[in-house]
């Protein structure tokens, strides 16, 4: 028996050890790859498999009756509940109405936060006066959980739409403004100097150099901001709401309709994920040069 065959024989005897060796060894790269780049490669198949296995395990434990439907309803019962709410509605309003109301609150607050936060953040980056004035209040409220100041919002602005949108607005505003502010630093001093040496005004430098250079960071801040918006939605719909996905989840939980709770969570996740995909598309269109120069 040659030495090589002996090696093979050993591996065949202990498959687990073989796997460990395979994971631990440093494999040379295939042509077209770069050696030693951490975490390179495609994860699509593995991700899909994970989702599949999670769904399967979920289905299995409910099908075998290991967990009561009150705690974990089966995947198919949630889908059926989704269809029935889609057709018949929840507490008198159709599902699309709940989705629309929540989307209006989140995206309305998001657009408002961007419309005010981005210019203010840019101004904070450009001017010590503006930064000096606005930095303390933003840094003061930013780390506070929205649930903590929800009562104040209600005392000041009532239980209508204003307090709901304002609560979401505040949670989006801080990350967007701070992102725009730090984006101001993205322009290289050479780019700024080049513009000035062509006789540019301060406004032109802002418009044609600093703003475009800050776009990648602004778009990233917007993605982070909308995430905070969805997080805050349920809190915003806790008080005196009669419509909305957050309201649906909260009121379903009071009646122990676990299937509706999970269904609402999935709907929120799906909308947020779709919007994130859209933002990535926008990023590729608007800043194709990101990280390339």
């Amino acid at each position, binding site marked *: 028996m040659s030495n090589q065959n002996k090696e093979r024989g050993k591996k065949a005897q202990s498959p687990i050890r073989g796997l460990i060796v395979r994971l631990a060894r440093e494999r040379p790269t295939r042509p077209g790859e770069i050696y030693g780049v951490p975490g390179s490669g495609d994860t699509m198949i593995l991700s899909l498999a994970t989702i599949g296995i999670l769904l399967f395990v979920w289905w299995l434990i409910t099908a075998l009756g290991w967990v009561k439907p009150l705690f974990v309803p089966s995947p198919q019962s949630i889908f059926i509940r989704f269809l029935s709410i889609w057709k018949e509605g929840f507490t008198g309003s159709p599902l699309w109405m709940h989705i629309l109301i929540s989307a209006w609150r989140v995206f309305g607050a998001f657009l408002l936060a961007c419309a005010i936060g981005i210019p203010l953040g840019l101004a904070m980056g450009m001017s010590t006066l503006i930064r000096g004035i606005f930095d303390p209040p933003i840094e003061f409220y930013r780390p506070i959980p929205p649930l903590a100041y929800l009562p104040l919002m209600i005392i000041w602005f009532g239980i209508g739409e204003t307090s709901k949108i304002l609560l979401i607005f505040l949670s989006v505003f801080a990350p967007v403004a701070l992102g725009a502010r730090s984006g101001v630093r993205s322009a290289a001093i*050479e780019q700024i*100097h080049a*513009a000035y*040496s062509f*006789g540019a005004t301060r406004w032109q430098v802002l418009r*044609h*150099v600093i703003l475009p*250079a800050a776009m990648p960071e602004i778009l990233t801040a917007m993605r982070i901001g909308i995430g905070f918006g969805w997080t805050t939605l349920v809190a915003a719909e806790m008080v005196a709401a009669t419509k909305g996905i957050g309201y649906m989840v909260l009121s379903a939980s009071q009646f122990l309709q676990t299937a509706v709770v999970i269904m609402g969570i999935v709907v929120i996740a799906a909308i947020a994920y779709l919007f994130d995909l859209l933002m990535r598309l926008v990023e590729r269109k608007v800043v194709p040069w990101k990280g390339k120069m």
Partner: protein
Amino acid sequence: MRLNIENATVIYPGISGGPVTEALQQINLTMEDGDFVVTIGASGCGKSTLLNLIAGFLAPTEGRIMLDGAAVEGPGADRSVIFQKHALLPWLNVRDNIEFGLMLQGHVKEDRNKVADRFIKLLGLSGFEDSPVYALSGGMQQRVGIARALTCDPKLLLMDEPLGALDALTREKAQELILRIWHDTGKSVFFITHSVEEALFMGTRLVVMSPRPGRITHEFNLPFSKQFLDGISARSVKASAEFIEIREEVLAIIFSDVEAE
């Protein structure tokens, strides 16, 4: 064009109460129309500070910078700067980068196109007008930067180690290109480099600076760029006995500064 630097001194305040730095001490330098002044010196000798003074990005602590009889009080379109890198705008394509200065000055699209076409041709960028600048090689990016600087017809071109980031072969080609453009356009050039060979080959005048405090210690008049423009090949110019002699002399000056540290 006439540039007069009169007794320019730049003192940087110390960082958090540390000692002050005298970046430039009593600099006197005059540039005439068509001069190609190259500045060389060990790092920290104030070359870039001097360029920033002329560009108007920095004000002298003492002394003054006079351009055609008027004091320089800030950056302006009569002095275009070409940087080592990072100065192009990656969100604009090659043409829009070249037209950037004209756009800032409010020229209409047709006029901008006409001027840009001329410099796209001159710099050998034809066919790349619509390319994104980040897709170009370093040498081509630098040509875009030079084209952009030329579009606004400046009196003086300020080049801050423009070829420092290029590989050796591209660099020699770029040196020849810059000399030809300088010759054809008749611009005055203030040029910073770390390469003694580049300095001797390109300049009509060489200014050697020494650090701490930054000051001008030697000046040379150079014949080599003229030899090249008269038709002698660049390598032959750089290999001539006269060239090598001055090269060693300048290197000796710079090394003595480095060893004095």
